[in-house]
């Protein structure tokens, strides 16, 4: 069966520090991968998605970047965090089929102080 792992679960970082959040998927190959951010009490904002290794699409210009160094690994990064980067970050995967649902990780709660 397929599983998705996302870590860390919580993170407190000072303004200006770098960020690296990692997401890995097991049990499937060539998944579509997604990074979402959810502000408190708000909906999900799509940040990045990837349909293959090295292929990254950005939905919102911002202080973050994403990379997909391996088929089932998706990394969210920042060189210098801003206060506004605080939020709940969710990684998700789905197959390439148009009826495939999204499968989410448990999320990372990031607080920038």
């Amino acid at each position, binding site marked *: 069966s397929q599983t998705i792992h996302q870590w860390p679960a919580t993170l407190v970082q000072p303004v200006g520090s770098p960020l690296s959040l990692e997401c890995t998927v097991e049990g499937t190959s060539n998944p579509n991968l*997604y990074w979402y951010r959810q502000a408190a009490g708000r909906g999900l904002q*799509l940040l990045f998605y990837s349909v293959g290794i090295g292929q990254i*699409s950005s939905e919102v210009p911002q202080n973050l970047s994403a990379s997909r160094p391996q088929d089932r690994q998706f990394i969210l990064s920042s060189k210098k965090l801003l206060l506004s980067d605080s939020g709940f970050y969710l990684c998700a995967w789905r197959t390439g089929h148009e009826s495939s649902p999204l499968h*989410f990780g448990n999320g990372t709660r990031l607080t920038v102080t």
Partner: protein
Amino acid sequence: SQQGEEDPQALSIQEGENATMNCSYKTSINNLQWYRQNSGRGLVHLILIRSNEREKHSGRLRVTLDTSKKSSSLLITASRAADTASYFCVASGYSTLTFGKGTMLLVSP
């Protein structure tokens, strides 16, 4: 990308009552999906309805889709306290799925 917008933003009911949430979207879709999120957790897929379907059932869930009005509804029958969560719809295209702000459902014992 297509976006779903849920209504109401918040809903408070008693156990045993039915809960109805609505969703509207703006463009043509392949399917519409509903997700649930417990506080502080990832989202869980509940049900998918294709654009050529009008109604679908799964356990206590009933979803309808009206493509002419670009709207969908999610009905949870005989609600339980454990149904307390936020519910999101997403009108799905091919590569991206964009979520609305969700409906926060509170079911009181």
